[in-house]
């Protein structure tokens, strides 16, 4: 039996185990939609193509599987760009399928023609322009393979109408990618050097990022930290790698990170960076970031290693294989040291008499010293932490502070929900104050900082993890960017609870204008609709809370109400996120206005 190109696309998606496709139809992709109608694959119509790509992104981040979205040619495809760029920055596996005008019309400025292949090249991991139905089996297989392996990322497949209408004679799918062979196993020598560096360090800090989440290696990272007794800080993308309340967890580093993570990284003698890319929001001024530390950097992408800071021990590897290997070596070395210490005694005086000779004596001494120093190091971080102002809630007038909403949400959900945070102040308060206990429980646009992300991403997250409580945190600016997706949420009765941090401002920009532009405000007051009425108009339950005394009751009511709920949390209009590392400063130069 021969299939049309369009029918093959849908059959292939089924075979890949794709559960849901997010998208928006149009002229050049009609054949594929027709094939989906015949097949009955689950399809979610968003209200804008940007919503579709964010939903696929949220699905991918929540599940670890490849998210799929579709759009038509021209404007449909260009509306995907922001979401593709967002997924590219945060290494999220997405396959985007776009319709394209007939091949013979390419380059003629046909109706709804855009150079999708050219436009999306810099914002995808890879992309394809299909030249005939016969290419579809190989191209689709390669697209899913590239998106979901190595350093994950978005892949776009542009399908002209004639390829969708054409016949697929052979379904033999060729995975011939001679230039794509991600390194999975780290070099044994480098892994050993990494382990030795960790064991020899007196003041180590482990830094875990989104790469640990992508590799499914959070438990391994935790085991490594515990084996050594080394503190762990995370990037924004790494939140949840360590349970929030784990004694070795220092929380997030960076501009709005915890003061003690920033304090520790500035003073550490070894930085073990796993799956991080040294984003400027995390490092601050690079010269002041871990200035006295040796750097061990493990990443699956060789181009990330040495990009911004030179690593003494560079390791190209999948963290899923590298972290267990390093841990095994660390345990082996520690046990060996224990034996040495046991044999030679603990004091320098005992060394002279040992039959093992001077070398084991010196080694045991060094091991004992490092072990002792690590305990002192943890104690000194704990002491600094005890003196830090936390939670960093700085009231700016009467009413609720947004941080109080996060703390109340943490109490009500016991930190078990999946938070989908938008971008800006709301995102930072959520990252600071909501306890993320597991990976894939804090979804946010980190690298690109895409406002409007949270609402549509929550759709994908909820569909991918139907048993999880999905909570959206968004500001009134970001929510208004993609609020039409409220209709999608209502249509599918997704039990998403939306907490709108409504301060009537583009808060983060307002904060920067206040702090760094002499309080000269421009374009930061933003009007909005009556959000409770808006929720009602879309068929959601709307609620409003504007005082701390009603907060717990409102949140409890929202979480127990079936179906989607939007809670308009009216907060202090001029609250700022503190503490902050001012732009261009080092992480040790964090300021807290309340002090």
């Amino acid at each position: 039996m021969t299939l049309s190109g369009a029918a093959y696309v849908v059959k292939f998606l089924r075979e890949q185990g794709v559960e849901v496709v997010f998208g928006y139809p149009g002229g050049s992709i009609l054949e594929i939609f027709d094939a989906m109608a015949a097949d009955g694959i689950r399809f979610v119509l968003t209200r804008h193509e940007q919503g579709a790509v964010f939903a696929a992104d949220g699905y991918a981040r929540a599940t670890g599987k490849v998210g799929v979205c579709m759009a038509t040619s021209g404007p449909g495809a260009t509306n995907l760009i922001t979401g593709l760029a967002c997924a590219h920055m945060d290494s999220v596996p997405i396959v985007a399928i776009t319709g394209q005008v007939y091949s013979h019309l390419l380059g003629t400025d046909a109706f709804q023609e855009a150079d999708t292949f050219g436009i999306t090249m810099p914002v995808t991991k890879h992309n394809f322009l299909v030249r005939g139905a016969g290419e579809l089996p190989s191209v689709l297989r390669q697209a899913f393979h590239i998106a979901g392996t190595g350093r994950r990322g978005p892949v776009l497949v542009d399908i002209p109408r004639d390829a969708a209408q054409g016949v697929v004679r052979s379904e033999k799918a060729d995975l011939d990618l001679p230039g794509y062979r991600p390194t999975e196993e780290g070099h044994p020598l480098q892994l050993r050097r990494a382990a030795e560096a960790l064991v020899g360090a007196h003041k180590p800090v482990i830094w875990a990022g989104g790469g640990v989440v992508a590799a499914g290696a959070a438990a391994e990272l935790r085991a490594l930290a515990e084996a050594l007794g080394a503190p762990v800080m995370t990037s924004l993308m790494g939140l949840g790698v360590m349970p929030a309340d784990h004694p070795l967890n220092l929380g997030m580093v960076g501009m709005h990170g915890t003061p003690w993570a920033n304090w520790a990284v500035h003073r550490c003698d070894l930085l073990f960076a796993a799956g991080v890319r040294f984003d400027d929001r995390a490092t601050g001024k690079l010269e002041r970031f871990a200035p006295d530390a040796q750097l061990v950097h493990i990443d699956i992408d060789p181009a990330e290693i040495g990009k911004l800071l030179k690593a003494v021990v560079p390791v190209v590897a999948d963290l899923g294989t590298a972290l267990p290997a390093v841990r095994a070596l660390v345990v082996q070395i520690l046990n060996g040291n224990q034996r040495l210490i046991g044999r030679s005694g603990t004091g320098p005086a005992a060394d002279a008499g040992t039959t093992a000779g001077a070398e084991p004596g010196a080694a045991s001494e060094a091991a004992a010293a490092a072990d002792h120093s690590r305990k002192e190091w943890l104690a000194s971080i704990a002491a600094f932490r005890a003196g830090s102002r936390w939670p960093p809630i700085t009231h700016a007038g009467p009413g609720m502070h947004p941080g109080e909403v996060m703390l109340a949400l943490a109490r009500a959900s016991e930190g078990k929900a999946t938070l989908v945070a938008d971008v800006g102040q709301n995102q930072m308060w959520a990252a600071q104050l909501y306890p993320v206990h597991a990976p894939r429980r804090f979804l946010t646009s980190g690298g690109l900082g895409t406002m409007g992300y949270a609402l549509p991403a929550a759709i994908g997250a909820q569909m991918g993890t139907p048993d999880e409580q999905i909570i959206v945190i968004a500001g009134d600016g970001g929510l208004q960017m993609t609020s039409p997706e409220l209709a999608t949420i209502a249509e599918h009765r997704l039990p998403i609870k939306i907490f709108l941090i409504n301060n009537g401002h583009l808060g983060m920009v307002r904060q920067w204008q206040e702090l760094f532009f002499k309080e000269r405000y421009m374009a930061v007051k933003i009007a909005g609709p009556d959000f409770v009425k808006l929720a009602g108009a879309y068929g959601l339950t709307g609620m409003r809370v504007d005082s701390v005394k009603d907060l717990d009751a409102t949140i409890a009511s929202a979480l127990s109400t079936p179906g989607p709920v939007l809670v308009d949390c009216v907060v202090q209009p001029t609250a700022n996120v503190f503490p902050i590392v001012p732009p261009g400063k080092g992480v040790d130069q964090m300021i807290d206005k309340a002090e």
Partner: protein
Amino acid sequence: MRHTLSVLVEDKPGVLTRIAGLFGRRAFNIDSLTVAGTERPGYSRMTIVTRGDRHVMEQIEKQLYKQINVLKVSNLTSAPAVERELVLIKVQADGQSRAAVTQIVNIFRARIVDVAPRSLVVEVTGDREKIEAILSMLRPFGIKEVVRSGPVAVSRGHGSLAMPDETPSPQAPSLDDRDVPAAGDVAAESSFAGMK
């Protein structure tokens, strides 16, 4: 510092755009870029002349490797390599100066490929020093137009870009006539085994 990179790529639509776009987006410098087919159908070789310190060059090579369609990147700058560029020079030459120009052309083993009453077109092939030398010699006569191919390069010795490098021939290039193959040979084998 100037570097010559030889990059083996799959001959797929858009691959030139990908490489050029990568250099543009990451603010890497391109002095010249040439691309054409290889001994094997479906693969192209790019010769890219670029500039950068060690850190920049490391990034350029890693970012090139990251491209799905890139199979192999070789920096021919530190390795023994032959580098050649083809240049067409339209130079003013009337009855009086034609003989002088022709003499220079002969000295450089260049060729005259077009003659007009008031000008000549000179074809010259060589490495950078030779090209710069003939240009400086012809400049006083009045150069009307210069068209350069950009350099292409290949490593000396038996090893090829398609194979893991074998020990290259230590033979230094002859200084007076670099068009003569260095002993050690030029017969690079085109095996694609063990790519990348």
